């Protein structure tokens, strides 16, 4: 308790407030550039943080940068279908269609509110239960991670239109094949599928893939049909700016936020998962438990489909601080960089931190509340202006997006092969879209496939199990697998029952559809 007070007193100084505001602004703007996610932005800001000297205040600023960058990434997903990082890919599934329908302002508002709620509820969970949760995180081993990712895989079902499920499955497999190029897997001690071409040995980076799948095809479609996709809200620009969420929508968002804050946070706590997996799982879960008519909206601009990943990825980002602060284990790329920053500031996170440096431990947690509030205050009034971006004619907007995508993809690796890969992927994706294949399952297969391979490989290698015996030797694994099966089968059974009902109704009443 005393520690919380010390943390509060550190956060409520002029210097801290000024720095968190600055951090949020920098994070929001840099985070909008495709390819520059929270990890890169924090890496850029570390020298500044180390220069500040006081670890609590430095971390408060970095928290601002962090949340700002996460929100900036969501903005580009929603407005231009160019998710800057993997953890906001799920945001584009419904955020972009919603913006295309003319509700850009509303989509951004939902994203901002969900992010705020996810981050804040996550911080509350962190305050209450950091220590016991760290022990829960250690219950998870490779078989559980594998099972959790299989649950996340069920998100793909959202993209299998009736009778076209095979297309979604094909795209997942395509994504998995793309991920297996090079040496991405922990079990690939020789490069795979590179055809002896050395620059391909590092595989396809997730940024290159996302740009190739989302941003580049937009440009090709612009060339194919310059009028296509011109923003529908142009004539009624009032709608673009309209941020209002009515009571009915708020009521629909609330339970999603509640569920996804907790689920996302718990997934974030596990060192082998993180925000990307949390957002995909949140999306999958909300789709599968939604009532029939709401479920059909997923992928076409669903309110729930946007709220879920936005809440979950922010809650997970907060959750990933649990193993870092209590065990000194960085569970994600971003927390690994923050760990480096803390060590440079002379702080060694670990079990002793909470007792030895309570001011720093609580200062970091307080800074999360702070970062979330400041971000909401800063960005909320800006939403109408950010949404206006869509009023820019696409003939100007798309080339800019393409330019920034290429710069982003090149900067991360400085490997020109990434650019060629991006263009090739863009061409292939354009053709796939013309043939009415869903694109999102490619990303899901790409992100989850390689991690599933690693975890499956470890589970099969572990001498504790013989073959697949981990499925029944580890009860938690079994439970997750059953959940995955239920998620897949339930809509099918429900759909069949509904059809039977409808048929009955049609037999008696002729004019119904």
């Amino acid at each position, binding site marked *: 308790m005393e520690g919380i007070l010390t943390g509060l007193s550190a956060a409520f100084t002029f210097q801290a407030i000024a720095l968190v505001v600055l951090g949020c602004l920098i994070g929001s703007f840099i985070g909008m550039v495709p390819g520059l996610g929270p990890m890169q932005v924090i890496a850029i800001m570390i020298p500044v943080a180390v220069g500040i000297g006081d670890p609590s205040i430095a971390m408060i600023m970095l928290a601002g940068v962090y949340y700002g960058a996460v929100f900036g990434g969501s903005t580009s997903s929603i407005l231009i279908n160019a998710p800057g990082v993997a953890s906001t890919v799920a945001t584009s599934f419904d955020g972009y269609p919603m913006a295309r329908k003319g509700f850009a302002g509303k989509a951004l508002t939902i994203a901002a509110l969900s992010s705020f709620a996810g981050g804040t509820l996550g911080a509350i969970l962190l305050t209450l239960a950091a220590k016991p949760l760290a022990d829960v995180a*250690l219950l998870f*081993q490779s078989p559980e991670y594998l099972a959790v990712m299989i649950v996340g895989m069920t998100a793909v079902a959202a993209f299998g239109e009736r009778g076209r499920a095979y297309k979604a499955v094909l795209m997942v497999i395509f994504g998995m094949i793309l991920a297996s190029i090079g040496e991405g897997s922990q079990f690939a001690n020789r490069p795979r599928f590179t055809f002896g071409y050395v*620059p391909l040995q590092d595989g396809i980076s997730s940024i290159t893939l996302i740009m190739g799948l989302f941003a580049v095809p937009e440009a090709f479609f612009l060339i194919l049909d310059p009028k296509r996709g011109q923003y529908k809200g142009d004539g009624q620009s009032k709608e673009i700016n309209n941020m209002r969420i009515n009571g009915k929508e708020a009521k629909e968002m609330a339970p999603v936020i509640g569920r996804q804050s907790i689920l996302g946070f718990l997934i974030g706590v596990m060192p082998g998962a993180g925000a990307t997996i949390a957002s995909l799982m949140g999306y999958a879960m909300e789709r599968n438990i939604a009532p029939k008519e709401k479920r059909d909206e997923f992928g076409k601009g669903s309110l729930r489909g946007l709220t879920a990943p936005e809440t979950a990825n922010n809650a997970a980002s907060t959750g990933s601080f649990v193993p870092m602060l209590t065990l000194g*284990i960085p569970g994600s790329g971003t927390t690994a960089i923050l760990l480096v920053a803390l060590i440079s500031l002379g702080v060694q996170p670990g079990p002793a931190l909470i007792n030895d440096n309570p001011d720093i431990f609580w200062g970091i947690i307080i800074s999360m509340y702070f970062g979330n509030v400041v971000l909401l205050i800063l960005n909320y009034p800006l939403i109408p202006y950010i949404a206006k971006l869509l009023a820019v004619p696409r003939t100007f907007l798309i080339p800019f997006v393409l330019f920034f995508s290429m710069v982003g993809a090149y900067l991360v690796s400085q*490997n020109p092969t990434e650019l060629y890969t991006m263009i090739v992927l863009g061409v292939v994706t354009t053709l796939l879209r013309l043939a009415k294949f869903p694109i999102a399952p490619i990303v899901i297969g790409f992100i989850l496939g390689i991690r599933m391979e690693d975890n499956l490989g*470890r589970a099969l290698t572990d001498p504790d199990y013989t073959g697949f015996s981990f499925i029944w030797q580890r009860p938690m694994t079994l439970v997750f697998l059953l959940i995955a099966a239920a998620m897949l089968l339930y809509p099918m059974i429900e759909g069949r029952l509904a059809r039977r009902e409808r048929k009955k109704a049609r037999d008696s009443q002729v004019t119904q559809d």
Partner: protein
Amino acid sequence: MLKKLAVGAAALVATSSAAHAEQLVDSIHFLIPGGAGGGWDGTARGTGEALTGAGIVGSASYENMSGGGGGVAIGHLIENADSMHGTLMVNSTPIVIRSLQGVFPYNFSDLTMIAGTIGDFGALVVTPGSATTLADLVAAYNADSSSIAMGGGSVPGGMDHLIGAMVMNAAGADATKIAYLPFDAGGVALAALLSGEIEVLSTGLGEALAQSKAGEVDILCITSDARVADAPDVPTCSEAGADGAYFVNWRGFFAAPGLPDDKADAYRAAIAAMYATPEWEAVRARNGWVEIHNPGADFVSFLENQEQIIGDLMTSMGFL
């Protein structure tokens, strides 16, 4: 032509200005075979910062060239050797392993070896109370080989796997068949150790030290030839019963093939002079690096010896 003039001018400057640390090299272009923010990147930029800050080198520039796990940069250095006399490429232990695997179309011995500058020792880590000594671990493994799973941050057949197996072998176990679980980052591997998924973790001393100070893990032994100042209580693997299990995970610098001897020696002299400067000490302390200096001919024989050790291990474990 201009370059030659510049070098000539630099030689003049070098002989005339002996006030500060003497400038030995006019400029160095560091070629980094991986992206920004990685271990290679930090080593090159930190070394460049110390060299220029101390006035030993006039200026330094950096180029990240990732791809092919470092293979693209090596290829670039070899194919453009004649025009790259001003370039030093940073690299580390995996170049030996990758060369042996034949993954690169080139071998590290195609390059001019300048010097090994820093390094880290391997460490075998367990959770407190599980096995108090290396002998206990080996006894448990010999009694029931399926009771021990080893984890590490490299692929199977990669560095962590090889070091762990080497220590176990030297201590009297047949570790060629030990179950090895690869993890993609040190932090996740550590979580696996604490969760009981793996019984022993093969990692670097630098990574294990902080955790051991926090009391979360025990370090069974390290692959150094003598105890280190940072961890005086931790025995070397030889002391712990793994006789001759010595391994250094080094980082160092290479230059283009066919680099004239005088230029190679100038680079080596610059690096040798760097260690005594306060600028280097600041960089070294900030990164927690351990100085393991192997200049010139020492570096060549060190690498040949390491290639021999790794090659034998990989052959006996069926990776070659």
